[in-house]
């Protein structure tokens, strides 16, 4: 019995610390925030439009997006119960966006990490110049392409 108590305390403490360590960005900002992207190095109109398109899909509560002059990156979240169709959803949205923005190289991801990174990037858009931003977006796109 002693061992079980030890074990469960261990598990509890362990999982508890892990959870506390991670500040959930999506929980902190539950509603849409108007990022001030006016001073962004690239005009974010396309990204805003893409967000709207993605969010018009059923089961997509939230999408965020950035664009450079050539690239468009969109990350979205999906209702948990719809996650079985995650890959299809990703494909449909990507197709739609590619159609809507033919001039852009479109990347769509549903990966949580990509979402977090994109969000971080959007929060500091104002302080970046064009070269830096190109690099950052490129990095995220590379990350999303990584396999295994």
């Amino acid at each position: 019995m002693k061992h079980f108590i030890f074990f469960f305390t261990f598990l509890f403490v362990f999982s508890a610390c892990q959870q506390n360590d991670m500040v959930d960005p999506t929980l902190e900002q539950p509603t849409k925030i108007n990022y001030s992207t006016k001073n962004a190095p690239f005009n974010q109109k396309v990204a805003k439009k893409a967000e709207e398109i993605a969010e018009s899909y059923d089961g997509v509560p939230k999408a965020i997006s950035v664009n450079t002059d050539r690239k468009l990156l969109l990350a979205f979240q999906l209702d948990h119960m719809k996650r079985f169709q995650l890959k299809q959803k990703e494909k449909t949205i990507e197709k739609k966006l590619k159609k809507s923005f033919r001039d852009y190289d479109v990347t769509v991801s549903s990966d949580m990490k990509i979402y977090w990174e994109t969000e971080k990037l959007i929060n500091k858009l104002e302080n970046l110049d064009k070269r830096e931003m190109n690099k950052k977006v490129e990095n995220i796109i590379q990350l999303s392409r990584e396999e295994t």
Partner: protein
Amino acid sequence: MVASFFWAFVIGGLICVIGQIMFDVFHLTPAHTLSTFVVIGAILDGFGLYEPFIDFAGAGATIPITSFGNSLVHGALQEAEKHGLIGVLTGMFEVTSSGISAAIIFGFIGALLFKPKG
């Protein structure tokens, strides 16, 4: 995030319940049970069913041993796409290697550090 933990717990738990039923009702040894699970994982991935399952359950689907079969097939198929049939052979351990190498390495370190406690 909360939903991820919830579903990881539930799905992971349910897979283990299936294992327990194989232990207790069908009287299979752990080795038989785990081998069966790995084969099931491989077959499910063959039908393309395991990926959506992982999307949904997260660690609830990647931590049980079934994911081992899934990732073996996955590695093989990835390589096969690039190099044809021979890729089936060469790509097999591409994705799974971390599990096996971790087991080998930590197994050896464990043997260096520990004695069986009984």
